[in-house]
């Protein structure tokens, strides 16, 4: 049904519209100030669309952010279109979806939230046939379920995803934690100013350790060595690096040990211009010896010396 053909125009006070109501929310995590400035300068181009709620008030369907700006601009009378109370929620959400899809690209957080909401309001088949191609989401059940779980997280976590402070892989890890652990671990990562990839690494190691050792992340982070390290007065990047290395050593004890042994050995034989690299992950005893020289002649003499050495052995 085309519900927009059944709207009535009205003038409302923006404060009378319940902007905390999330029924038709299509989240937008970016700053609202540019929109506010625009409305302040050129006025309201498109009237927001609202619905009379069963409780008697009005809830936003399209133009939630416009309404927020109008509030902030101190407007007391705003033209709106009012949708009938009996419009099904799924239809109203579809209107809100297309209104947004027409003029913006959805970030990963908005996409996850929308998928979650669409799955709550529609069958999987409808979601797949009518919406997913617009969102650029493959119509695969496990993928939809993952996005649904991501979309169910707190807005503070979704905002971090929208801002690319965390990536979707990190969000997928966080949605399996309980809310308290999730917020705590994210706050810790952000306080250490780790980059997106390192945040993923550290959180994935903590999650793994938590599962393998059957301990909560809170318990892992409560270890004394963590507290000492975080409370230290060394520069933040150094502390962040040491924290990451500590968690890495818990996760990969054998590798860390081999690295320490190797570096100790390499220090003993160190020569300027010569470096030795082990096989990746010490998978085998091979090493790569790299000799840095300043000219082809020098390179030739190094190779000659090696040849002589090899010859003398035989």
């Amino acid at each position, binding site marked *: 049904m085309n519900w927009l053909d059944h709207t009535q125009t009205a003038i409302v006070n923006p404060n009378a519209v319940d902007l905390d109501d999330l029924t038709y929310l299509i989240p937008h995590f970016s700053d609202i100030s540019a929109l506010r400035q625009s409305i302040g300068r050129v006025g309201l181009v498109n009237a927001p669309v609202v619905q009379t709620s069963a409780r008697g008030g009005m809830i936003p369907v399209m133009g939630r952010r416009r309404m927020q700006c109008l509030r902030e601009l101190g407007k007391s009378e705003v033209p709106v279109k009012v949708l009938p109370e009996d419009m099904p929620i799924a239809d109203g959400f579809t209107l809100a979806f297309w209104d947004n899809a027409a003029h913006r690209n959805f970030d990963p957080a908005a996409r996850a939230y929308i998928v979650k909401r669409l799955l709550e309001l529609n069958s999987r*088949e409808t979601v797949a046939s009518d919406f997913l191609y617009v969102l650029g989401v493959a119509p*695969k059940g*496990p993928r939809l379920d993952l996005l649904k779980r991501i979309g169910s997280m707190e807005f503070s976590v979704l905002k971090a995803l929208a801002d690319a402070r965390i990536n979707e892989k990190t969000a997928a890890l966080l949605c399996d934690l309980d809310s308290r652990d999730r917020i705590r671990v994210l706050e810790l990562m952000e306080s250490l100013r780790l980059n997106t990839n390192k945040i993923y690494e550290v959180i994935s190691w903590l999650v793994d350790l938590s599962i393998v050792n059957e301990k909560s992340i809170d318990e892992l982070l409560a270890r004394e060595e963590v507290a000492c390290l975080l409370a230290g007065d060394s520069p933040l990047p150094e502390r962040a690096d040491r924290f990451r290395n500590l968690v890495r050593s818990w*996760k990969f004890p*054998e*590798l860390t040990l*081999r690295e320490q042994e190797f570096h100790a050995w390499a220090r003993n034989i160190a020569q300027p211009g010569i470096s030795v690299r082990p096989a990746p*992950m010490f998978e085998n005893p091979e090493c790569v010896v790299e000799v840095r020289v300043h000219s082809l002649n020098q390179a030739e003499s190094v190779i000659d010396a090696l040849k002589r050495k090899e010859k003398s052995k035989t």
Partner: protein
Amino acid sequence: MNFPIREIWIDTEAADAPLTRKIVGKFPRAKVLQTDEKNASRLMRELELAADPFSRGKKILRLVRHKGVFVKPCPGTPEYVCCGLKILHVGQGCPMDCRYCALQAYFNRPVLELFVNMDDLFSDLTHYLKQSGDTFQRLCTGEFTDSLALDDLTGLAPRLVEFFATVPNASLEIKTKTDAIDPLLEVDPKGRVIMAFSMNAHGITRHDELRAAPLKKRLGAALRAQKRGYLSAFHFDPIIPLQGWYEEYSSTIDSIFRTVDSSRIAWISLGVLRFVAGLKEVAEARFGKIRYFHDGFLRGLDGKCRLHVDRRIEVYSRMAERIRRHAPDARIYLCMESPHVWQKSLGLDMQRDGDLEAYLDSAMQKEVRSNRGGTSCNPALAGLPEPHFKNF
């Protein structure tokens, strides 16, 4: 085996095959759908939209004509030593449901597929073996599916045993987690067929190998097969070294040697859990958190997630030591490991694929030699050159 098949999809090209009619007749209550290319892809899309396409797919049997080759090399893995096994491709997907199963991340079609053009399989196989000349070939049907889980539908395994019993330059390995070997007891393998069982720790078998036969039943089946003249093989793959692993795996090893004749074991393979990164995600989306996938996995030289080499060496050394307590000459091999790991854990110099191929081929050649002059050995074998032995 009694697996719950709810739907049968029959491809147009498979509709007239006698095997199709036979299989459909075994499932009078299943929904049967005739599928052409168009509606098969629609059905597949609908299936993929399910929360767990694999669980649903394990109840759907798709009957198709296989258009590709039936004999293909095992995909193996780069950078590690592989055994040169050839896969006899009889179908794909498995009605059992092991939580660690690599196939979950390997196939893009979650349904069970059986090939109904068996005559093509045998002609392809004959052609392949003819082309191979004197080069010994080890073939196996249990790579993309369990060798026996759906065999009561096709009756293929006994036919293959009869075929391989007459072939001088090849052996067949039938690899399973079932105990459904009764039809195989009606045919004489003539020393050319290995009945292999996938083994694991009791705890893993109970919790992670859904719908598979319990270890005791697998071992009972191994014994019955041995008595009928089959060689045995046991595959510990994946070994999952969680806390207490040694006691658990030792218990399984001891059970093997308490049950079967160790002199009739062709080989025992060991492979610590390794997986493509995507598997963890797929498996956990289906089963929830799986503890062992969160162990200290690193990216190996082949890009797969592997435990640190020192830990793998320790596992292999201790498992091999336990096996050798029972059978000092047991032919133990490592699946997809490096020469370094071979040397450190088994003390064997296994530098390249050809070395491992010869090592395993020699197990079969030994069997052939011991049968020579008896009635069970094809005289054509007498002309075969000795394989390349490297102090095995």
